[in-house]
């Protein structure tokens, strides 16, 4: 009998057009935090989906607590005390936290010996006790649609604990969290481990692995590269193994050569749906060959600012000028034709039509022009030719090439598709909103290189990012936004990250005035 709680031996799983796992073997000890590291599409999630019974492996065997098992369904996995927190939460939005957790295993109370009802009170008490035991700070009576993502995630954790899971799988748990929330989650994971749980962490964030994991398996393109002891390995080595080549963290950027002014925003004011001013009297300009980065904490109006420039939101005051032309009230298409490329924050809802093919999505902004349309007839072969060209040029990976339905592609490749489409428009202004959110190192590096390349070509770039590192690495000029106002505009070279951070919190420059 081995001392491993989980053994997955020689697992191979194929999907149409792709080998997701190629002879992968991992062994996990009881009570350890085991990380699975790899780029998007490396096969981490697939491997864990098999452990959780969502797919069956084509080849290989799974051994749990020394016994060979065939896990046929997630329910079967639950009976084996395996739980999983998925990337997309599975919660009923109009139910309370307690109702969501107990569903399927409800505590029941009987009236007159026959009428069974859900025992709401007992459910609430049980959940509250469980929440306190692991420090989850969850109020079981709150309704899901009224709580934030971080708490929803904790509800998913409680769901596993309520079902007495011993092996907990977390699929990219920090992708949707803020830095403070990540801290909190890592503490929770620690406390789960202290209780004797075994934890498998799927991630592509090296700092988290370094912080809490004991061992780390690295996957690259479906193959197991190595299993490392985290304490004895530095992040640089992990990153290189994961990407399969030398990774360059810093961005090579020549001195800027500024051209003429391309975008000019004057006294711009934008209201949100509730008639609340979210962008207040903002003025700035972006020149050709310049990366203007807007730094700020999430929710300070930066997304609305970008939406207003792109035409998705109507400004309530001020003006926007592009290449000397007033576009304040122009329609979105005329802005695009005038020279705006927009890489939105919400890729799946704003950036792509998820159920259309990759080729249709790549032509989404010029399908009405030749060569894609002749008169009012669409030319299918032009779509395919164009998309094959872009797939090659931007290394967009997908199962069936041009014909792939975008929904089935990984997040990183979806973003690559948007960026390819927008850069190919050859616009004078490119707006990037959170371009690397949720992406892995290899993809981030690639996108940063492309942003700099566009700038070197003389394009104006408006970059909106919540990652301070990204702003510091890329920006020529930094504008810090706080509470809807641009608090500070300065040359990137003249500000330290600490100073930018202070302006982001709204306390920067206090001592100057005093």
């Amino acid at each position, binding site marked *: 009998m081995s001392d491993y709680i989980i053994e997955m031996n020689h697992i191979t799983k194929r999907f149409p057009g792709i080998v997701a796992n190629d002879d992968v073997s991992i062994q996990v000890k009881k009570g350890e935090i085991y990380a699975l590291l790899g780029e998007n599409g490396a096969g981490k999630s697939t491997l864990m989906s098999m452990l959780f019974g969502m797919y069956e492996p084509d080849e290989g065997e799974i051994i749990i607590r020394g016994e060979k098992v065939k896990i046929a369904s997630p*329910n079967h996995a639950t009976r084996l005390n395996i739980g999983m927190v998925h990337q997309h939460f*599975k919660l*009923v939005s109009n139910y309370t936290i307690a109702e969501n957790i107990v*569903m*399927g295993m*409800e505590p029941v109370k009987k009236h007159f010996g026959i*009428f*069974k009802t*859900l025992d709401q009170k007992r459910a609430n008490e049980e959940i509250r006790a469980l929440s306190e035991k692991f420090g989850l700070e969850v109020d079981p009576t709150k309704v899901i649609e009224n709580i934030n993502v971080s708490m929803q995630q904790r509800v998913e954790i409680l769901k596993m604990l309520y079902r007495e899971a011993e092996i907990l799988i977390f699929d990219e748990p920090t992708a949707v969290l803020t830095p403070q929330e990540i801290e909190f989650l890592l503490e929770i994971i620690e406390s789960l481990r202290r209780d004797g749980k075994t934890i498998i962490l799927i991630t592509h964030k090296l700092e988290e692995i370094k912080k809490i994991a004991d061992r780390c398996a690295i996957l690259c393109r479906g193959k197991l590269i190595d299993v490392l002891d985290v304490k004895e390995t530095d992040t640089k080595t992990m990153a290189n193994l994961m990407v399969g080549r030398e990774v360059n963290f810093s961005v090579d950027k020549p001195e800027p050569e500024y051209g003429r002014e391309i975008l000019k925003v004057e006294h711009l004011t934008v209201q949100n749906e509730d008639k609340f001013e979210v962008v207040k009297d903002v003025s700035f300009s972006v020149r050709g060959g310049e990366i203007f980065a807007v730094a700020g904490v999430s929710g300070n109006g930066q997304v609305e600012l970008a939406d207003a420039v792109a035409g998705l939101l109507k400004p309530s005051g001020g003006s926007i000028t592009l290449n000397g032309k007033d576009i304040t009230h122009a329609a979105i298409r005329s802005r695009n034709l005038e020279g705006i490329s927009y890489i939105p924050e919400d890729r799946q809802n704003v950036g792509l039509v998820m159920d259309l093919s990759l080729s249709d999505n790549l032509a989404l902004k010029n399908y009405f022009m030749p060569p894609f349309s002749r008169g009012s007839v669409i030319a299918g072969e032009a779509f395919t030719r164009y998309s094959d060209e872009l797939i090659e040029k931007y290394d967009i990976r997908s199962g069936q090439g041009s014909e792939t339905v975008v*929904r089935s592609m990984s997040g990183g490749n979806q973003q690559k598709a948007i960026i390819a489409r927008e850069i190919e428009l050859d616009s004078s202004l490119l707006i990037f909103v959170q371009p690397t959110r949720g992406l892995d190192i290899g993809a981030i590096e690639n996108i940063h290189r492309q942003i700099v390349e566009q700038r070197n070509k003389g394009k104006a770039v408006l970059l909106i990012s919540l990652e301070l590192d990204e702003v510091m690495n890329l920006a020529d000029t930094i504008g810090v936004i706080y509470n809807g106002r641009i608090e500070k505009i300065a040359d990137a070279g003249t500000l330290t990250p600490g100073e930018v951070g202070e302006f982001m919190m709204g306390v920067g420059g206090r001592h100057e005035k005093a």
Partner: protein
Amino acid sequence: MNTIIIDGLSFALPLFIMAIGGIYCERSGVTNLAIEGLQGFGAFCGALFAVCIAPYFAGDSPVPFYLAMVFAFLGGTLFSLLHAMLCIRFKANQVISGVVINILAMSLTEFMTKQINASIFKAASNKFVLGVSARVTVPGISSVPVLGAVFTNLYPFEPVIALIAVIAWYVLYRTPFGLHLRACGDNPHAVDAAGIEVGKVRLIAVLVSGALSGLGGICFAYSISANFSSNIYSGYGYLAIAALIFGNWKILPTLGACLLFGFARSGGYELVKILEMPSSYQDLVMVLPYVLTLLMLVFFGRKNHSPRALGVIYDKGAR
């Protein structure tokens, strides 16, 4: 005043029971436009059974009526199996399935009514004559002013419907099964992850809808039309759908909507009588509930939210 309440209730309650069925179905995530067809087919089954056994009972016996209710219940269930098969098993478009079932029920029952009349009863007729069921008045409480009208001249189906409605409310909001059912209409993936079979819950919900629609249908056949014929398809099923939408897919507000429809109709009749208008104006009154529907659409249309997963075919793999 009393007539308005008495007639209003006898119209509103069958509507209400059909709407409850619709709520079950739609809260589980299956769009149900088939209520019209289901109530017609249920009424057909009940009426057929009633005319078959009628010779064995005395003319004023209530037994055939109760048995007709049972068979309408079963007939509606049977016919709704078709909707369940199409929507759940074969993942067909739920709107199209509903519309097709309505058309199918109408032509099928009319054809069968004629054939059965010709071959079994040797009569060329396109209806089964049922008569209006006997009405009862609860002694004592019925003499209370205004409120007493609720207990006066009751059709026997009214207390039955009230009882079923209470049970339906209790099951939907208080039992684990109700919890699962409502969850299926919001996020079936969560239900699946909790180890519950989404298809099974939805199947039961659709069948409940069929059963209750059939029940509503036979009640109309025994009161308003006094027979079974293609007249039964005069849009009450759609009215039930309108009621549940105004009721925001909740049972109690839906009762309110049904009562409103019922009283609008009976109030209109009363008005025609008081104003001594020609009886042809009564047809105009029939229009009232529908006009009310249009008006309410304007006011409630935006505020109400349908179940999140309504009409979405459940596909385990989809993200």
